[in-house]
């Protein structure tokens, strides 16, 4: 029976470990916020877990959105009005449900495309790393450094892609608008030219009677 209890304690230890590991996660989402709408995302965070929130408006209107980050007791941790880009890092002092809300209620007809990056805790380590208690060899520590540098390269690439998407969508919009404007104006000129002649003829026709 002692063996069984040892196994159960081992399992409990493993589950505590995995529960701690599972608290660390991060998600990047891009979603469309319709006009006059508010979207909220919730996350349960343990106290002391370093978290960060980043958002960027990719397309839509004047490229601005309202953001509010609230803690478990509804206290406002971070608030921005009509911002295009923002980043906020925080370490929660209380465990609970944190919510971040994006509001487009000030806009009447432009829906916005918003990118959110909500990271909770550090990135989960590779299995096996950090488990033994000897110091890391030079090879291990330089490969760790390379990994962190590559993480920031990927991060820079994401930011570059978002900025470039903004410019590209604007250009595509402009291209479409130029076509419609050209067609509309041609039609307008034709209608006005023919209309002028008709009206003028009308003036003279009346006089004859």
């Amino acid at each position, binding site marked *: 029976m*002692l063996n*069984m*209890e*040892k196994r*159960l*304690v081992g399992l*409990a230890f493993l*589950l*505590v470990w995995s*529960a701690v590991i*599972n608290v660390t*996660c*991060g*998600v*990047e*989402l*891009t*979603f469309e916020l319709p006009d006059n709408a508010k979207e*909220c*995302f*919730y*996350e*349960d965070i343990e106290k002391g877990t370093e978290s960060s929130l980043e958002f960027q408006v990719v397309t839509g209107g004047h490229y601005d959105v309202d953001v509010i980050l609230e803690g478990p007791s509804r206290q406002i941790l971070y608030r921005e009005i009509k911002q295009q880009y923002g980043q906020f890092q925080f370490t929660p002092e209380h465990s609970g449900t944190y919510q971040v809300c994006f509001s487009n209620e000030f806009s009447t007809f432009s829906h916005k*495309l918003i990118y959110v990056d909500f990271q*909770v805790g550090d990135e989960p380590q*590779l*299995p*096996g*790393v950090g488990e033994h208690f000897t110091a890391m060899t030079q090879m*291990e520590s330089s*490969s760790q450094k*390379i*990994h962190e540098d*590559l*993480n920031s*390269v*990927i991060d820079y*690439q994401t930011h*570059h*892609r978002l900025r*470039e*998407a903004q*410019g*590209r969508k604007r*250009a595509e919009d*402009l*291209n479409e608008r*130029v*076509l419609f*404007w*050209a067609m509309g104006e*041609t039609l307008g*000129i*034709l209608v006005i*030219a023919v209309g*002028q*002649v008709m009206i003028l*003829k009308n003036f*003279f026709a009346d006089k*004859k009677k």
Partner: protein
Amino acid sequence: MFFNRRSLLLFISFLSVLSFTHGLYFHIGETERKCFIEEIPDDTIVTGNYKLQLFDPRTGGFMPSSPGLGMHVEIRDPDDKPILSRVYSSEGRFTFTSHTPGEHVICLYSNSTKWFSGSQLRVHFDIQVGEHAIDYANVAQKEKLTELQLRVRQLLDQVDQIAKEQNYQRYREERFRQTSESTNQRVLWWSIGQVFILMIMGFWQMRHLKSFFEAKKLV
């Protein structure tokens, strides 16, 4: 051991519930549809984990599991063709690999048959793209890699993703350049065309009016 077996088992079952809660969640109506956009290069793996919970009006909270409920997952590629359109159970994961670079749209909605909005749903959602989607514990076990080998494998995957993204960037920049050149052309043709149209209409107007006045014997 001073823990008795019962309390230990209770503790373990509590912990196993804790370990399986996903991170981010949001609320949608039962008939509502929520879409996310992923702009990714081609040949990239995307994995999504989700869990659906139905609002329980009796307790005022959300039921821990709702077996009858399903989640319809629809994924469209940049050309608006559906890649994946399936109903999964209330908790699960889906994976797809992109074949064209661009904006993929992932839409989630429950397979509820109500006509107007029913109760609220809580959706736990997690989406991982590219090398974040790879489970290294699995890879280490299957291929029996040492720690350093696993780390090198991770670095290789990261560099691969970076190279794909750079290639996608080149493709996007080409599209942007084409759009700008097309706008330039359109503006040029439009301004030339406009001058011609104005001249022709002016000419037609004068000729038409002249013949009109001559017919009326005013000229």
